[in-house]
């Protein structure tokens, strides 16, 4: 096999973990992100000395090929098998990995004894069955998010994982993104004080459609638009952002209300193109979530609102309510400006609008890096999934599970599905007791 290994995966996160481990209290800080303890630089070196992880890829469409490109750069990975039911995608992937064995039935791939780990990059509706099959076949498994299309399927996957000794990863790349990890720790250490709420949104302006060579392939290729295989914006986009919220809050919301509809793309699709929801924690705090795909003005943001400040995780910046770093003269000029231009003659100071532009952004990562500008999550070149993929390959060799990744994906997926149910039934939906797992805190 002629894998291109000239360009190795960015070691930024691993160096960060190494630095973290060397810091005073670094062990305690790592304890707040326990999933990282399975992929330290030392363990990677050890794994690399042992052998390479033999990987099979199920689903070689655009996402599968994206993973293949990343795998080709990972020195401890070797792609040995590919599987897809759609021949053009299989052919395209085979060109990337000429020596790989090709399958059209995933069960045949799972019978292959020379495979350590399986990557599943198929439509959401197939995630549960393929993951369960893969774990039953004794393969370490890496699956695209979200976990499954229904809550019952989620529970079945979780139970199978719990009873298995295999490694299971979900592509929740924010858990392995340096600026997110750093921000989690800054929030835990009290940077923005008590968390009083969260606001997340993801706006795009595109129809989500792909070109279809013949009409009978519409539901196969444009699977995201149809409910038999997709739960729409919530699982495709919202799952990432809700996962961040539960990680930061370290607890689960207990109920959700919201509205969703097909507002603009009335092209026969079945999933909403506009969603707006409020999740509530047991203590009254809220996550306000919004997503639509017919306007991108607001972009993607994950704002954690604290009494003393705000962290915008996706942009990698934070703002303080009382900012010590703002020059005195600037504060005085702002006061003068507000006194001249923002005075409200009919009321006292409580009626004055508090303007956002008085906040000064501080970078979460001090070094000059795309991470500080949000590029490594939403940039076209790299969405951050390469690091988590490498961590999976390492686990395929060591057999060491990444703690909390499955549980976080389970929790986020359940929240997404609760949100969809609330929008479909136009009512407040509470977290069903039968889907509560021991990991969840309230």
């Amino acid at each position, binding site marked *: 096999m002629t894998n291109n290994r000239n360009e190795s995966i960015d070691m930024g996160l691993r160096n960060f973990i190494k630095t973290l481990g060397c810091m005073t209290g670094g062990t305690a800080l790592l304890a707040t992100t326990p999933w990282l303890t399975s992929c330290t630089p030392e363990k990677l070196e050890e794994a690399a000395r042992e052998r390479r992880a033999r990987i099979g890829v199920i689903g070689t469409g655009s996402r599968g090929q994206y993973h293949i490109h990343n795998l080709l750069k990972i020195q401890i990975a070797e792609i040995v098998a590919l599987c897809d039911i759609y021949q053009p995608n299989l052919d395209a992937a085979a060109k990337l990995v000429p020596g790989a064995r090709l399958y059209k039935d995933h069960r045949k791939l799972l019978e292959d004894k020379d495979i350590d780990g399986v990557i599943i990059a198929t439509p959401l509706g197939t995630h549960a069955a393929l993951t369960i099959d893969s774990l039953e076949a004794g393969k370490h498994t890496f699956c695209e998010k979200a976990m499954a299309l229904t809550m019952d399927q989620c529970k079945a996957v979780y139970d199978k994982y719990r009873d298995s000794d295999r490694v299971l990863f979900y592509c929740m790349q924010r858990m392995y993104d340096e600026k997110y990890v750093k921000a989690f720790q800054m929030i835990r250490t009290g940077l923005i004080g008590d968390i009083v709420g969260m606001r997340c949104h993801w706006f795009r302006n595109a129809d989500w459609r792909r070109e279809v060579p013949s009409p009978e392939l519409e539901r196969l290729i444009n699977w995201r638009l149809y409910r038999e295989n997709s739960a729409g914006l919530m699982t495709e986009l919202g799952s990432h952002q809700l996962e961040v919220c539960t990680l930061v809050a370290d607890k689960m919301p207990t109920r959700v209300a919201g509205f969703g509809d097909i507002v603009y793309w009335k092209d026969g699709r079945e999933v909403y193109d506009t969603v707006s929801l409020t999740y509530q924690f047991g203590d009254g705090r809220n996550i306000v979530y919004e997503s639509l795909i017919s306007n991108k003005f607001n972009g993607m943001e994950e704002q954690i609102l604290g009494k003393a400040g705000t962290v915008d995780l996706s942009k990698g910046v934070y703002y303080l309510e009382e900012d010590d770093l703002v*020059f*005195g*003269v*600037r*504060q*005085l*000029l702002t006061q003068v400006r507000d006194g001249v231009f923002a005075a409200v003659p009919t009321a006292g100071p409580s009626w004055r609008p508090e303007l956002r532009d008085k906040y000064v952004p501080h970078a979460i990562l001090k070094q000059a890096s795309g991470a500080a500008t949000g590029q490594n999550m939403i940039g076209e070149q790299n969405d951050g999934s390469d690091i988590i993929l490498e961590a999976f390959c390492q686990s395929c060799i060591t057999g060491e599970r990444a703690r909390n990744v499955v549980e976080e994906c389970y929790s986020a997926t359940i929240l997404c599905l609760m949100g969809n149910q609330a929008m479909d039934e136009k009512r407040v939906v509470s977290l069903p007791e039968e889907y509560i797992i021991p990991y969840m805190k309230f």
Partner: protein
Amino acid sequence: MKDIVITRKTIRRELSILGGCFLFAVLFDLFAIIKFGRPFVELLTTIGYELAITLVVYLITVLVRALVWGIRALFVRGKGK
């Protein structure tokens, strides 16, 4: 076309006004530092703000003086008639 002659007296007057504006900016900065409990080193690190304030205040004095000069000129012309 007539040559424009800027006398030494004019230059000295404008420099004095500019100096006064800069002094005002420094005192403004000093007041802000005391009011918000900031370190005094900000008098140096915010020199850009001070220069900007100096320029703005100087431009305001120019506008005010031009206005006064204009009104005075109107009165003088009225008396002349």
